[in-house]
């Protein structure tokens, strides 16, 4: 019985694919975008998405609905179905854990387009109406790392620390590729200007836990870290830095108003270009990319204004120069000549691009002298532990 049903469902799916390919343009007035966000505006991560959503929808003049505080559970599917009931024809979710539930909703609603930020499964799921997007934020992190390295150099030159004491602390959420890729690119950026830099990383096992993030930053500072950065979504780490007077490189957006004496710079993804892209696709009846990767060129990867009160002299110019080098390809973030893994240079690596339960590597990602991040799918897959970075246990 189940087989017959499976067959029928597959058939229905195929038919719906045909229907999806023959998608008609949708009039601007009829477009309604539904946004699903994990937290509300108190989270720097979600606020960044919210601002982009408003900007994109207002620019294109389409209607939108926002649902906040949607858990990474069945609640996400319910929220998507609710938005469809309200007449939405595009659903966008912002958190990694929303993915499975977005796929559930997408497979039941072939006439609605589902776009998911940070997800990894669109290219293997085979659904025409389900799409992933991310940005080459490792480039932004690398640039922010350059600013951090400049600051470390300044501290060394002024005699505040010795070269060996140039230790960075990093508060990460979960030990998986998105976070690892982020801190590794940040560290490589810092080490490209301050060769003696090392880094300690600690994980909070939560995307948003202000107390724990603060505690983690305090722990790193007491371990002797002289500069802190983070990949977690609350103001915990930046405020801990402001209290301790330790420079901070932020993420998701500027924290300068809360931390005027310690904030150096922040990298962030501007999601507005992607949101405009997906809405325009639906308006024109064109298919949306299965995997869309925003770059510095698309305006998706940004650095906020550098806080010159805290940043080292010449940071702005140096960052601009490195950015130009990234754009013309003369500098690659994960250049295999700049790092080693277990004391060995990296010559080949099979990354788990098509996620599976056994985490088997399936794609060779070292090419042309660099680890090719965000090329085979938009979400990061760099999950190596490189030398110079120490991961602290709890």
């Amino acid at each position, binding site marked *: 019985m*189940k087989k017959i049903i499976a067959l029928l469902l597959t058939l229905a799916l195929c038919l719906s694919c045909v229907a999806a390919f023959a998608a008609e343009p949708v009039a601007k007035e009829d477009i309604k975008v539904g946004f699903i966000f994990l937290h509300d505006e108190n989270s720097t991560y979600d606020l960044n998405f919210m601002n982009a959503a408003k900007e994109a929808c207002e620019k294109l003049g389409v209607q939108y609905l926002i649902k906040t*505080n949607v858990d990474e*559970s069945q609640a996400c599917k319910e929220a998507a179905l609710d938005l469809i009931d309200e007449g939405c024809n595009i659903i966008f979710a912002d958190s990694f854990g929303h993915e499975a539930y977005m*796929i*559930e909703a997408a497979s039941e609603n072939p006439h609605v387009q589902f776009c998911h930020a940070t997800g990894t499964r669109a290219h293997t799921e085979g659904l025409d109406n389900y799409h992933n997007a991310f940005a080459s934020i490792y480039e932004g992190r690398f640039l922010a790392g350059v600013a951090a390295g400049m600051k470390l150099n300044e501290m060394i030159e002024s005699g505040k620390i010795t070269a060996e004491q140039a230790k960075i602390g990093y508060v990460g959420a979960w030990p998986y590729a998105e976070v690892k890729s982020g801190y590794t690119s940040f560290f490589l950026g810092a080490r490209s200007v301050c060769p003696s830099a090392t880094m300690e990383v600690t994980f909070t096992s939560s995307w948003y836990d202000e107390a724990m993030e603060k505690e983690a930053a305090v722990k790193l500072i007491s371990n002797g870290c002289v500069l802190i950065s983070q990949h977690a979504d609350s103001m915990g780490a930046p405020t801990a830095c402001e209290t301790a007077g330790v420079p901070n490189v932020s993420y998701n957006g500027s924290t300068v108003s809360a931390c005027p004496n310690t904030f150096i710079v922040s990298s962030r993804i501007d999601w507005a270009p992607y949101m405009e892209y997906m809405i325009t696709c639906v308006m024109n009846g064109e298919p949306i990319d299965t995997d869309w990767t925003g770059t510095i060129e698309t305006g998706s990867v940004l650095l906020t204004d550098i806080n010159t009160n805290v940043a080292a002299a010449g940071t702005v110019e140096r960052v601009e120069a490195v950015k130009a080098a990234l754009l013309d390809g003369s500098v690659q973030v994960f250049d295999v000549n700049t790092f080693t893994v277990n004391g060995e240079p990296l010559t080949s690596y099979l990354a788990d691009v098509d996620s599976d339960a056994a985490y088997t590597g399936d794609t060779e990602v070292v090419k042309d002298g660099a680890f090719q991040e965000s090329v085979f799918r938009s979400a990061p897959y760099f999950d190596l532990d490189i030398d110079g970075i120490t991961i602290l246990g709890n």
Partner: protein
Amino acid sequence: MSKHQPLLHITQRGAIKWYKALLIRVLAFAAALAVCGLLCAMVTWEGGSATAGMTLPERFVAFLRDLCNAIGRIAQVVFNASFKSDRVVWKTMHSTAILLLLSLAVTPAFRMRFWNIGAEGQALMGCLASATCMILLRGSGMPDWLTILVIFLASILAGMIWAVIPAVFKATTRTNETLFTLMMNYIATQLVAFFCVVWENPKGSGQIGVINQSGEFKHFGWLPSISEIFPGVAPSFKGNNYLLNIVIVAVVCVILFFYLSRSKHGFELSVVGRSENTARYLGVKVRWITIRTMMLSGALCGLAGMLLTAGNDHTLNPTLVGGRGFTAVMVSWLAGFNPFVMVFMSFLLSFLSNGASDLATNFGLNASYSDILTGIIIFFIIGSEFFIRYRVHTRSSAESGQEVV
């Protein structure tokens, strides 16, 4: 006045007439709505600009008007949250069913005054057992019916074990069952958190996602939907994914009603609850009954866990039961341990929690606000029970023998 009389004094009521009890409850509910309305009006009131140039009485009138509007809007939003479409009605019925099953589960133990507040952990263990089977048995070539049978037995056993441990300690060493069952919840939560990391996908994310969602083992170990059991039903039927769970809970509800009120076991429970010594005198084996009853409680919690993991959510995470194991304690109490009244109480609480979360969205307030509103309403509901059980007299009415409430 010959002797000192306090301003208010409280006496226990005898039997209260049903319509009086109902009236008190309705009044309490109305009062709860009014307080919520007041709060909404206060936090969303536009204050200065809208009322500039008004005199004080005019402002007061403006505020009252806002208040009435807020109450009207609240009533509408709360109603829509559970009834705006077929799908939402089914969803409400499903959350009612899960809460009801957990409430039914704790009830036999409550009847014998064994305060099992470990339903959360017992259900979570059921979820863990289901998820374990769904993950470890895939690829074994087991037929669907056998898989589901194994999942069913494993979940029930897991819930049972989690409930029996405190029962054995209570029966043998007279440990405090309230603390013991409470602590077992935290162990269950941590165990689930541990296994979420063992089976996380992708590596490092700490998330399992939807188990057997797609690919080779698509829907392996999932309870069938109604359209899969009865091919005549279209998969687009809005209750398709919910109805089986609802039917299972309804059957359990009826069986438990007869078990508690018509069977020898049920009678023994009530006797143990009234007085252990009387029970012993009657030849009831109190220790065995304690253990047997907690086995039943745990088994039903385990079943609830299975309905969540294999039936509806198809995932595992430490917040999957989401506090419903604790809410169930309240449902069971408020319903006076009567399974049929529990149907109504579970519905009421599901209805309110749907309403509160939509209210927060509608008034543009954050999620904590819906918790505040639910808190206010539950406070009034529990408060109304006080007035049903006790009578409040004032000094003057005590003299004339009149009652106030």
